[in-house]
């Protein structure tokens, strides 16, 4: 038997304690967790240890090696994929290899979005999150080939959803995707998502107000709009160069940074041809990380940056002078963010990720202020949120069936 493991900062379970010489389907190990994983071609089991929850997938060696390499590459490109930890091979002549990934903490399988009360508002952003994910992957030259609800995990992102790739068995990396490849990938996504929603409907779990046809048609629309915004060539008058700035600002607002633009002028003509050349998602993520060291999701980061700016304005008013951005961010981290999170009892912190906790604390503060018609500090809002709201929320760190 051979274990090929990625060295990570976070600890991993001792794989040698697992019954690796038995078919995965026959395991009866005490750490096994049943998990709602949807439709899969291969046997997938989950193992819980003191170091977290791990997904183990049994598949032929050639495919396991390929997926291992692809997931590592995509992670290096900062694309939202599950963390791959290793491959176990040469188990027995009759047994396939096992690919190990770390379960994405605080992720919501799609079935939960449709079957749990209290999160119905998130369904609306499901299509947006998949459109953004596909656009991200396509910009990076990755043809997924099997985008589906089952192959995607979703995380709360400040009132919206962010989507993660779980399964890349059919994926292909290219320098650049052709329009035909993108179109086919979108076509496969449409078909798979439509099938996934019809399957939910057949199981009686699809809310009646959701029309699967409308959902997939909106995916095509959203993806098309996003791709156009991200890549289309734009022609502007020399005197209207501000339109280029406006386009870049719109891209930032969508969460994308433009690292390089292509501008060509037509000789003596008054027109400028402009096209974003290198576009990368995570504009607000990187900005927040630069200022505070915190690594959050895009909308969470955007929300925190807004809060940092508000805090800076409040400080300037109180002290009578502006503070440098870095100082404001440092003070916000120490005086606002960390105290707010530390107010949440340890036993409730598995309900939401820190970024989402902070977002919900701010929402709670807004509601309190509105109700009391008075200013409420973030820390006070956090204490009230921990007492009144959070205990009734689901434990989302590692959702398991039956929760």
């Amino acid at each position: 038997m051979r274990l090929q493991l990625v060295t990570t900062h976070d600890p991993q379970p001792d794989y040698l304690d697992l019954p690796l010489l038995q078919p995965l389907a026959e395991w009866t190990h005490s750490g096994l967790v049943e998990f709602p994983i949807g439709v899969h071609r291969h046997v997938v089991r989950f193992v819980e240890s003191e170091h977290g929850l791990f997904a183990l997938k049994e598949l032929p060696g050639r495919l396991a090696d390929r997926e291992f390499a692809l997931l590592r590459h995509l992670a290096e490109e900062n694309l939202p994929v599950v963390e791959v930890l290793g491959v176990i091979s040469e188990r027995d002549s009759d047994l396939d290899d096992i690919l190990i990934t770390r379960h994405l903490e605080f992720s919501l399988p799609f079935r939960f979005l449709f079957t749990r009360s209290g999160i119905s508002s998130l369904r609306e952003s499901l299509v947006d999150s998949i459109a953004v994910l596909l656009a991200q992957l396509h910009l990076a030259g990755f043809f997924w080939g099997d985008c589906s609800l089952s192959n995607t995990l979703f995380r709360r992102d400040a009132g919206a959803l962010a989507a993660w790739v779980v399964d890349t068995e059919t994926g292909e990396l290219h320098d650049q995707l052709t329009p035909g490849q993108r179109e086919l990938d979108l076509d496969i996504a449409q078909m798979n998502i439509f099938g996934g929603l019809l399957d939910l409907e057949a199981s009686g779990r699809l809310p009646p107000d959701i029309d699967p046809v409308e959902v997939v048609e909106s995916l095509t629309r959203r993806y098309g709009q996003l791709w156009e915004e991200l890549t289309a060539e734009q022609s502007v008058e020399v005197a209207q160069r501000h339109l280029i700035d406006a386009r870049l600002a719109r891209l930032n607002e969508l969460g994308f940074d433009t690292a390089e633009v292509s501008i060509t002028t037509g000789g003596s003509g008054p027109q400028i041809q402009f096209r974003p050349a290198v576009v990368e998602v995570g504009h607000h993520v990187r900005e927040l990380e630069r200022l505070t060291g915190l690594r959050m999701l895009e909308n969470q980061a955007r929300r925190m940056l807004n809060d940092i700016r508000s805090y800076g304005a409040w400080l300037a008013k109180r002290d009578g002078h502006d503070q440098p951005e870095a100082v404001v961010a440092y003070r916000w981290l120490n005086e606002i963010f960390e105290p707010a999170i530390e107010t949440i009892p340890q036993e409730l912190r598995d309900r939401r990720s820190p970024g989402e906790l902070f977002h919900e604390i701010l929402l709670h503060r807004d509601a309190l202020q509105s109700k009391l018609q008075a200013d409420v500090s973030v820390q006070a809002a956090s204490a009230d949120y921990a007492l009144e709201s959070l205990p009734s929320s689901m434990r989302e760190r590692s959702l398991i069936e039956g929760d």
Partner: protein
Amino acid sequence: MATITLEKINKVYPNGFHAIHDLDLDIADTEFLVLVGPSGCGKSTALRMVAGLEEITNGEMRIGDRIVNEVEPKDRDIAMVFQNYALYPHMSVYDNIGFALKLAKTPKDETDRRIREAARILELDEQLDRKPAQLSGGQRQRVAMGRAIVRQPAAFLMDEPLSNLDAKLRVQMRAEIASLQRELGVTTVYVTHDQVEAMTMGDRVAVLKDGFLQQVDTPQNLYDRPQNVFVAAFIGSPSMNLFEGTLTLDSSGQGGSLTLGSQAISIPSEVLAARPALAAYDGQPLIYGIRPEDMEDASLDSRPDDQCIHGEVSLVEALGAEILVHFGVDAAPVDSGDPDAVVELGDTAVVVGRFNPRSRIRLRDSAKVAVHAERLSFFDSSTRLAIWD
């Protein structure tokens, strides 16, 4: 239904890599054509160009009478059949087959007709109300096929659709796909790296290497009359045994012999009579090949001693109806150019013979092996092209 024509098709990537060179293929209406070759040969690239997933650098691609170089994939009337069809556990077989038509807003009665027709062809009529969990592995694959069939495309394109299946199901499914394709009569282009799959499924097989078409022919012709060393070695399992040797004609010019390291094989006069071009190789080195089934344990064969060779047995694989005997000879092995093949180094070639199971040859025996010299294949050493005339 449609013909598919590739005329002088080239694919050059922006980094300068020339993936396909002047590919000419005429795929007939209703034909099942398999593209086969080792890793990096260009077979998937060629298929993707037919599908519209890769742009064509130059050349002309036609589906039916229409030039499709610039036509969007969705407008080509083709169906890519993938390995990744998931079945939905709560939906019936009927719905699993037909749900795509709902998305395409196909009228209900037409949808129903197509689903039932597909189910009849796939012999799933009795299973239409069942859920996937109640089906066998093969039936599930057929449901997935049904999803492509109901779209009624002019052509199916399949890129290694069986590669994710276990060996047993793969064998079963390749027979089912081949038989289904014949019943449907839909032009099909199928990509595989597995030459056994190619030979058992295709009406014709196109062998590619390094982006060049090596040969396109019926499976039997590829096997019996390979055009070059690469095709000779690539088609057939176990592979053709290839050696470099020198041909020496006898004084009458009617017979001759071939060297095999320190040994020699007598060449009957009828072989030379059938291939007069061999006369030009008198005293010259050439490459020649022996299929495993064209050898036999000499104790079970009446050939004269000068058509027998000797070697030490390194492996005996008893397969029931036959045995595969691996033995070494002191001749330099020939590299066929297959990047996926294990290349033997040194001056000893391992020869594989497919013998009658009554053979009593054992491991480490010094075996005497009869060679059916009339079945030898010959190739030019420098061009590596076959000498058939």
